[in-house]
């Protein structure tokens, strides 16, 4: 879609709400969905005379993330005030980090379309979220607006990539990989609809081979992976067309409008804020000693890339299956727990990927963790296939019933009488009836049409409502069919 002579340059700024119980600079709860302004205090309301106090666990989650992204942690880092007036911000400045952020110079390995890429991480810093405005009607014409400060002061982590992304697909891939890491680390719930994870992009085009960057445009309001990719694809087209027609790109901020599938100019650089950053005098510099960092490093979980490789190597899974199974920490945990109970990894992987993911999104840790079929029960089901109690076909029905009811496989099989018919006397009678009822097919078989066997097996299965042991049916048919 881009004219071949242009190269796309994208950098992403991702804001992740940290999963702390209390806010960044006060003790108020961060729980989502409470009554407006019920989770506020003088500090997060920006009353006169209040002072911030750093939430230690937010810093730890930030360090955890920075380490997972291979960043250098700044031993001496500090907070700064970023000023702009808006009613959702109680102090009319946001406590953020500017010079001396928490961490810098990391890298995130991604793979898009089979090509591995290392995307640089410029910085990871901490800041506080703003409140939420509720307008009576549309913003431009609202007669009044109310503000809810429950979200004001919730800890945010901003992760800024280097301008290393070269396509909208890569940008979406980077965001997916980053989200997976955040979920693995347990630092953010990754919910883009609720706004726990937000993404802005800087995008520019330049002639292929050029060293200089083109004029960049910032795109906001992309609250899903799809939106990120679509918005950037649209913006690539828009800028390419403009450049082809000899226009200049204006440095500006544009909003993605998913309804109309286009970006709309929000403000140009002439109106850009001067944030008047300066070091936050109410907070002494935050010292992050090597001891603290190492203790956090020691507690890091296995990360998606490492787990993917281990799954392929240790369980003999294809790269594709290993990738799918490690998309979410809960899914990977589920798989490993089931394999411990039933050490046939390929079977477990097939069932997890084909059946479980029919019901659940792979990357929704909360849903996977709350799955009505615990790993032990999946293992129990697979054991019943292996020992011949039920067929694989019946097992799929049983799986669905297990998912609906939360019961284990033996209970369902017993209640519904689904045990495989492996009694050769009973099956023998049924086979005889089937042969007697289908003389033409039997004749086909005799004249060499081997496919006729499949039909006869099917008829036996039908007569037993699928409960016949397939091996036994095949053996009996082999014995009873006339040779020749």
């Amino acid at each position, binding site marked *: 879609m881009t004219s071949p002579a242009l190269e796309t340059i994208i950098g992403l700024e991702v804001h992740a709400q940290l999963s702390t119980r209390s806010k960044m600079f006060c003790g108020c709860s961060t729980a989502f969905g409470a009554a407006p302004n019920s989770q506020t205090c*003088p500090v997060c*309301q*920006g*009353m*006169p*005379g*209040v*002072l*911030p*106090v*750093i939430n230690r666990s937010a810093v730890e989650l930030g360090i955890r993330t920075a380490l997972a992204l291979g960043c250098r942690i700044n031993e001496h880092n500090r907070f700064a*005030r970023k*000023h702009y*007036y808006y*009613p959702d911000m*109680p*102090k*009319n*400045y946001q406590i953020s980090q500017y010079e001396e952020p928490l961490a810098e110079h990391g890298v995130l390995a991604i793979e898009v379309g089979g090509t591995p890429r290392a995307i640089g991480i410029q910085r990871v810093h901490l800041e506080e979220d703003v409140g939420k405005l509720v307008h009576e009607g549309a913003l431009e014409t609202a007669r009044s607006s109310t*503000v809810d400060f429950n979200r004001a002061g919730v800890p945010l982590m901003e992760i800024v990539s280097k301008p290393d992304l070269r396509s909208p697909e890569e940008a979406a891939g980077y965001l997916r990989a980053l989200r997976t890491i955040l979920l693995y680390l347990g630092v953010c719930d990754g919910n883009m609809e609720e706004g726990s994870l937000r993404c802005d992009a800087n995008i520019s085009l330049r002639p292929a081979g050029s060293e200089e960057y083109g004029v960049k445009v910032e795109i906001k309001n992309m609250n899903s992976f799809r939106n990120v990719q679509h918005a950037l694809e649209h913006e690539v087209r828009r800028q390419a067309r403009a450049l082809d027609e000899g226009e200049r790109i204006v440095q500006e901020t544009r909003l993605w409008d998913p309804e109309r599938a286009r970006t709309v100019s929000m403000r140009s650089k002439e109106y850009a804020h*001067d944030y*008047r*950053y*300066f070091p936050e*005098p*109410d*907070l*002494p510099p935050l010292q992050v000693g090597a001891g603290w960092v190492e203790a956090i490093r020691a507690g890091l979980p296995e990360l998606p890339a490492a787990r993917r490789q281990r799954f392929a190597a240790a369980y003999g899974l294809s790269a594709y299956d290993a990738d799918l199974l490690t998309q979410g920490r809960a899914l990977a945990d589920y798989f490993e727990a089931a394999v411990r109970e039933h050490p046939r990894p390929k079977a477990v992987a097939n069932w997890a990927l084909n059946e479980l993911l029919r019901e659940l999104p792979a990357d929704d840790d909360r849903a996977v963790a709350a799955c009505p079929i615990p790993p032990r029960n999946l293992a129990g089901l697979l054991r019943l296939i292996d020992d011949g109690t039920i067929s694989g076909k019946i097992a799929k029905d049983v799986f669905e019933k297990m998912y609906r009811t939360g019961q284990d496989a033996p209970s369902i099989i017993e209640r519904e009488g689904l045990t495989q018919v492996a009694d050769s006397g009973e099956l023998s009678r049924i086979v005889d009836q089937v042969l007697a009822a289908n003389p033409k097919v039997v004749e086909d078989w005799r004249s060499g049409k081997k496919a006729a066997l499949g039909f006869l097996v099917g008829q036996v299965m039908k007569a037993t409502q699928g409960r016949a042991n397939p091996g036994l049916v095949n053996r009996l048919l082999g014995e009873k069919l006339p040779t020749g």
Partner: protein
Amino acid sequence: MLTRLTIEELGARFRRGEATPSQAAAAYLERIGALDGRVKAYLTVTRETALGQAAEADARFAAGRPLSPLDGVPVAVKDLLCTRGIRTTCGSRILETFVPPYDATVVARLRAAGAVLLGKLNLDEFAMGSSTEHSAFFPTRNPWDLDRVPGGSSGGSAAAAAADLAAATLGSDTGGSIRQPAAFCGTVGLKPTYGRVSRYGLVAFASSLDQIGPFAKTVADAALVLGVIAGADPRDSTAVDVAVPDYRAALSGGVEGLRVGIPAEYFIEGLDPEVEAAVQAAVAVLRGLGARTEGVSLPHTRYGLPAYYLIAPAEASSNLARYDGVKYGLRAPGGRHLVEMYGRTRAAGFGAEVKRRIMLGAYALSAGYYDAYYGKAQRVRTLVRRDFQQAFERVDVLAAPTTPGVAFRLGEKTDPLQMYLNDILTIPVNLAGLPGVSVPAGFTQAGLPIGLQLIGRPYDEATVLRAAHAYERATTWHQRKPPLP
């Protein structure tokens, strides 16, 4: 007269049952009623609160269980300190109706010690000024001469302490706002080390410079109040966990052998000769008590004032951004949209001096100017701090004038720069975060008080207070009372 007694004397009477906290509160309220119409130290008198607290203190003394040396003692605080349920105006129209839902840490500590709150004291708007003429409501008068200013910004706190309108008061000092009015009003005013007293609930002017401290009739009383309000606070990350000594006990011991430095740069051109003479005489008194005095140099002193007038307004421009009409305080009517509402509210709510400093500060922080102004001022600050560090390698305290002159007439200083020069001898101490005290050190021929400033090492209030106490014991300046009934 109970209102003449020091905290120590008042406490002794309470313990002996010769007076009750209710009697003391009533005496102060009566005196406020009689005199404050002329002095105008109070913005709000909290009569009911005071009488209620005093009655509770009565019961504790009756049971023989006072909470602290401040139990039952009538005090008042600068109206920049948040008081739960009691209007806190900061001397500004923009907060004229603001009632905080919480107590400043120092207010909570005073309450917990049993002190009785008489009310809230006048100040220059948001503590920006040196005369209390910048109060949005009315100027406070100097008790020694009602046509003169009490100094500022804690002018109400100084005047109330000097005129016996409270047994002790709290103020705040960003560039001299405790020491300068203490000198002008002939009372004791102590600015503790930055980090010694929690700033939680002190409405911020310049966060890296502001510090709360007491005004009192004597050094010993100031030591008692400091003991109650000092110490780390989980709500203020800049209030450092350094052990708080028993300041009262540390007063004894005198100044025998104490090394007192006299900084040459503080005896500037333009220093009032009467002030200079009084301070030299005070140094001689200290020498007579056994102190070893020597000249020292603080070479970057002259850069302190300009650095301060970049740093303090810069921080103020940020701290005052929250007063926008959205959440509390004034909202000016008539704005057709958000930006207009902001503009009208801030135009109507802030006085000229506050606006001047917000503009200065916003400019100093703006893109392209930060390094030249704010950044450079911070480097100057480091040099000023280093000057003091080097001096304190040789001496234990520094002695200097608190102010270049004495109390001036209301309306006399109309040029902001002339006003700013009042703080030239106090500002470096704030830039370095050091403790400093002003004690009465004489009077001019015209009968106006002169202050001696003593400056100490970080967190060494004890030595500063010991020297001040020794000086006070050897002189009688603190016993003089202003010409009021």
